[in-house]
């Protein structure tokens, strides 16, 4: 086969073009040049054989574990069954793979199975947590009164069609709103100070703020309890709980906002300053708008953390079974505290109400989380 890669001009024409510089390609006459196109190798995809061996081992492991756990040994327990089944699966997989593959490949499959199994356990744990909360809450959730009534004059034996968790929901919303109003200006101001002003004092502030993110939430609650309630004589109230949440959330949000502001490109700042804007205008019109999605994400995740914290409110707010509209007057309930106290009471109907509150709390956190994700995506889309 002759492959002609370019037209070759005859001698006469070659002479005519002596003046110009041209490139001529040789006629190639030594067999095929291009190798037959090799099929692209799939590096990561498992072959049909791998998949068959894995599925077969899984089935064999499950069956053998059933025999061991439920027929031979007195281990008839779902957890024991799962553990035994997984161990047997690994053993069978090793033996089955070593029939066809060499040493390193067998180890690779085995470790791959262990890692996938570990990730599956974590996934199962997360799914079981969410699903279990909603399943246990299912009897209480369809009742409308659960969302609009409080627990005043509701006894332990009263059916689920009486009373609700609205007072705890309202308390949670009010406490977190106060905490946000207190925390956000301070946290944002500190983050602006640390990134935009800087200096040695800013380094001190940053060190202390980072150190305080390690403060356990119960210690934050105990601090507010001993200062506000014991020393200054405030009653246990919504405002005390909000202060405890603020103390806990302030370092977390300040640090997250600091991280977000630090990655704003300094070229934007310099351009704004070069155009004659003052530093304050630069921060307000350039830095903060650029970082807005990141700041919103930091804030929302901070709220999600704060709304689910039980220990600070356990120490500071007290638990009222009825609607409390003023955060200053007296004890006030919140969702985590309601869940804790109902579950601790041990009354079956109270526990179901507690699970309903847990489902509402979890839904709220999920909504906040999805909102944070959407905002973060908006940032990366730009």
């Amino acid at each position, binding site marked *: 086969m002759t492959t002609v890669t370019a037209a070759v001009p005859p001698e006469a024409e070659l002479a005519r073009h002596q003046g110009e510089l041209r490139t001529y390609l040789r006629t190639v006459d030594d067999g095929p040049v291009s190798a037959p196109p090799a099929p692209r190798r799939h*590096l990561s995809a498992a072959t049909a054989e791998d998949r068959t061996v894995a599925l077969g081992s899984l089935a064999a492991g499950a069956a053998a574990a059933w025999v061991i756990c439920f027929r031979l040994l007195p*281990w008839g*327990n779902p*957890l*024991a069954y799962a553990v035994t089944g997984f161990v047997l699966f690994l053993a069978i997989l090793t033996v089955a793979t070593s029939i066809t593959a060499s040493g*390193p490949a067998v180890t*690779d499959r085995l470790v*791959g199975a262990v*890692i996938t199994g*570990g*990730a599956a356990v*974590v996934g199962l744990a*997360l799914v*079981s*947590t969410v699903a*279990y909360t909603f399943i246990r809450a299912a009897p209480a959730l369809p009742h409308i009164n659960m969302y609009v009534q409080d627990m005043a004059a509701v006894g332990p034996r009263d059916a689920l069609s009486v009373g609700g968790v609205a007072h705890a929901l309202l308390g949670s919303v009010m406490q977190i709103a106060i905490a946000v109003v207190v925390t956000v*200006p*301070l946290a944002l*101001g*500190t983050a*602006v100070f*640390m990134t935009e*002003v800087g200096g040695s*004092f*800013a380094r*001190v*502030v940053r060190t*202390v703020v*980072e*150190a*305080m993110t*390690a*403060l*356990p939430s*119960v*210690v*934050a*609650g*105990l*601090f507010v309890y*001993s200062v506000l309630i*014991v020393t200054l004589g405030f009653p246990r109230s919504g405002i005390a709980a909000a202060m405890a949440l603020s103390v806990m959330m*302030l370092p977390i949000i300040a640090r997250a906002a600091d*991280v977000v502001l630090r990655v704003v490109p300094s070229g934007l700042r310099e351009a704004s300053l070069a155009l004659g804007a*003052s*530093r304050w205008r630069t*921060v307000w019109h350039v830095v903060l708008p650029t970082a807005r999605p990141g700041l919103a994400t930091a804030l929302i995740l901070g709220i*999600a953390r704060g709304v*689910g*914290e*039980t*220990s600070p409110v356990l120490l500071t707010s007290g638990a009222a079974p009825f609607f409390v509209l003023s955060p200053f007057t007296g004890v006030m309930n919140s969702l*985590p505290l309601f869940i*804790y106290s109902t579950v*601790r009471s041990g009354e079956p109907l109270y526990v179901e109400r507690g699970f309903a509150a*847990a489902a509402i709390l*979890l839904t709220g*956190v999920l909504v906040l*989380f999805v909102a944070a*994700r959407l905002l973060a995506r908006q940032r990366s889309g730009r």
Partner: protein
Amino acid sequence: MSTIVRVEEPSSTAATPRQLARSESGSDRVFAIGARAVGAMVLVITGGIGIFLAVQAVPTIRHYGLRFFTETQWQPEADVVGIGSVLVGTATVALVAMTFAFPLGLATALYISEYAPARIKATLVSMVDLMAAVPSIIYGLWGFFLLQPLAGPLARWLHTYLGWIPIFRVDTDPHAALWEQTRYTASAFIAGITVAMMVLPMASAVMREVFSQAPLGEREGALALGATRLGVIRSVVIPFGKGGIIGGTMLGLGRALGETIAVLLIISPSFDLKFRPLEIGTNTVSALIAGRFGDATSTQLSALLTAGLVLFVITLVINTLAAVVVSRSRSGAGTDI
């Protein structure tokens, strides 16, 4: 038209550098002062907590001396107060938590960064973040109602077959015809697994972040030399991500030590100095604070605050070490924890 070029002596035109005003204009100064004031305020608030805890600890330490750290009982009415047993309990719960959280977190991080199909990777990352956002009281419910009935028999199994190892001992007879279920509940083991659920996503997120930054060239080099996926993990990903693994684990440990409500919900408080995680009864510093603050007099309150300070200092040291490990290691570049 012609251009006229001026001819001048270079010396006569030496440009004098413009004096840039170093002094800030009015609004800039207001901004700087305002920002500094906010920073100072936050410093006072946050630093004030630390100082307050330290000041409160002085009378307690002066009254009880070093016995405060070794005394196991908490009986304020008899003037015997110490955190020996609760410190051991805190360590036990945290240790059990890390025993579960470290391998599972590592496996999750490796699965997401190395094994998961590219399509579902982003979803899995979000799921791990979501797991970190679930409130701890919900994990407490999970541990108390779902896990406890399942883990009791598992604890008995461990006791039956591995009871000769001291840490698996439980003070009962595992072979009794009617085995004592209650001896295996409300233990540090179950509380530890529940706490593991909370710290696992944190540790896993840090590890995955670091693994995903392992240099592509070295990965491809290992693959080109014929490494299996395990080979890539062992020779590239793990050495590169060692700092992230240690740092993530320590961050998780810091969180595990301070976890309150799930532990309080599950354990039955006891002040025995023991290291038997499977057996009923333990206590942690945070559960002690949450359980005892209500009926505390001012002396007892300052003792509780001292316990809180000890917990805070331990957490702070661990978090600082974690930050140093991550930033010192090769994998620290660009990681953000």
